[in-house]
């Protein structure tokens, strides 16, 4: 499997209050052709910033270090025209809130055909026909009528399905899905996710799937990276991440999920407050909330290193291996 997208040592700083603050710290990840890669973390952990770095959509004043390579080409070296072709033809993005990401005064038909006409050079009539076919693929009833409607006439779930089919319309090679189901009703979430997953597999597209739901990422992605405060703290194959988390934060995240097998009075939460990316301290970013913290964790920042085929950023990963895989819950509750 050849590598389609490769992020290497990506660091991003944003201007804030007269100085540059680092929001992404040395992030590296690779996505193979047709592979799905999950990016999991709390709000403000740098997931979306990472996605924006791929699309070169960072706010003005942002400084980027490291490389983002798509199919061997550094995205940051593209000139204006090449960047437009890259955005238009190679990558498609699906956003969290479909309603705010559509122009409210354009019809669904306008929205779906604009990319086909501009980036694929199709005529308006052909593009409309293609759009109707695509809508049928995502199980939208009466697609011809939908094409004449405005975004606010569609429900959130329906609109998100339209967004998915529009994203697939230009036949990209990589989809970046930024929490595509978060803004939807629970009843719609599973359906939309299933459609996205199925279409992606059918077409052999690579996907970067951003979510804060570790289990969801594990279910749809081959490989999952966990981000915390701008760092990738752990990265490994999804099923292994689920069964054998290597980082205390990933383990805590999986335990914070309700499970049908467990009966609890109260769901466990990760103690403390999530750190936003730009307040990362000198030691390990998770140290403050970690039940396994030692002096070393506070003083020295751990590096991302390999352990049994996984990448982990924790000083104590080896000694904690068994604990994290097993009865983590007691340790966590004993700590608070």
């Amino acid at each position, binding site marked *: 499997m050849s590598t389609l997208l490769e992020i290497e040592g990506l660091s991003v700083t944003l201007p804030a209050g007269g100085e540059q603050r680092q929001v992404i710290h040395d992030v590296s990840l690779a996505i193979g052709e047709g592979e799905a890669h999950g990016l999991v973390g709390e709000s403000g952990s740098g997931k979306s910033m990472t996605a924006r770095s791929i699309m070169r959509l960072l706010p*003005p004043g942002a400084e980027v270090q490291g490389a983002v390579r798509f199919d061997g080409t550094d995205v940051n070296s593209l000139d204006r025209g090449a*960047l437009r072709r890259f955005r238009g033809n190679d990558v498609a993005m699906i956003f969290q809130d479909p309603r705010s990401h559509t122009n409210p005064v354009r019809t669904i038909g306008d929205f779906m055909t604009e990319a086909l006409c*501009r980036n694929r050079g199709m005529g308006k009539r052909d593009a409309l026909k293609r759009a109707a076919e695509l809508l049928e693929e995502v199980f939208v009833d009466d697609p011809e009528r939908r094409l004449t409607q405005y975004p606010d006439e569609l429900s959130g779930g329906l609109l998100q399905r339209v967004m998915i089919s529009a994203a697939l319309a230009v036949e990209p090679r990589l989809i970046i899905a930024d929490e595509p189901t978060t803004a939807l009703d629970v009843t719609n979430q599973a359906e939309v996710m299933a459609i996205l997953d199925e279409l992606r597999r059918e077409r052999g597209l690579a996907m970067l799937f951003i979510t804060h739901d570790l289990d969801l990422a594990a279910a749809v992605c081959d490989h999952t990276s966990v981000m915390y405060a701008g760092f990738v703290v752990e990265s490994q194959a999804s099923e292994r991440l689920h069964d054998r988390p290597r980082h205390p934060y990933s383990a805590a995240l999986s335990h914070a999920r309700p499970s049908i097998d467990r009966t609890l009075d109260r769901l466990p939460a990760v103690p403390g407050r999530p750190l936003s990316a730009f307040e990362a301290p000198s030691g390990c970013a998770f140290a403050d909330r970690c039940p396994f913290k030692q002096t070393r964790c506070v003083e020295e920042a751990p590096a991302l290193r390999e352990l049994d085929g996984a990448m982990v950023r924790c000083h104590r990963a080896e000694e904690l291996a068994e604990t994290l895989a097993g009865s983590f819950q007691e340790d966590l509750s004993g700590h608070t």
Partner: protein
Amino acid sequence: MSALVMGRRRLAAGREAYPRLGVLGWTSAGFLALIALIAVFAPLITPQDPLAIDLGNAHVAPGTDYFLGSDANGRDILSRLIVGSRTSLLGPLGVVALAAAAGSTIAIASAWIGGRFDQIVVRVVDAWFSFPGILLAILAVAVFGSGLMAPVIALAISYIPYSARVTRSGAIRERRLPYVEALQVQGFSAWRICTRHLLPNLAPLIVAQATVAFGYAMVDLAAISFLGLGVQPPTPDWGLMVSQGKNGILQGHPQETLFAGLAIVLTVLAFNLLGDRISRVYQERS
């Protein structure tokens, strides 16, 4: 007018079947449509020749022969008002069309590029406000000669900052909406996003501002005509008629100044009311 229709369609398309212009808004729109029709068909509907001098019938009071009376040269005031509506509407139309086109271009470019460029534009526009429109128009007449062209262009230049400031505030807000980012991600050019998405969405705001500006431009151009620097006699023009009738007032024949003034006041009022309603509908939408 077609810009107005377009703006209405966009509004209607986005939220509701009819924009809430209200009774006053629709009355104003209807009145202005009527004036526009009169201007278009002026030569066909004048009861008398607006240029025919008949000194024997000077200063005739309004009545059956002369519906609104006659002026000092015995010309029919109603016919002159009807024909005069052409220059009186065309002038302000030219002013707001030029000013809105230039102002919106500056505003959208400034909002799109942002950063230092935007700040420079804002300062330049601020300084631009200090250009006295009428004085600039008088200067233009002095340099290029009297007529409609020179004052219209001069006034348009002095109206640009008003259009630019209002449109920029809307464009900045629109620029930050997530759908713009979604368009960028689809690889569309800045030109396309600005002209095909931002501009149509800002159209109601631009039209509202232009409508109000139309009234001001009309008054300014009337003032220039009044000073004898705009449209030249014997071509009828409302501003010029106010000026020409002023001697008649002292002689007890106020009809020319009165009716020409009334035509200006009613038209300006209608434009202001309509502009106000459009901008309110736009604000309700966003």
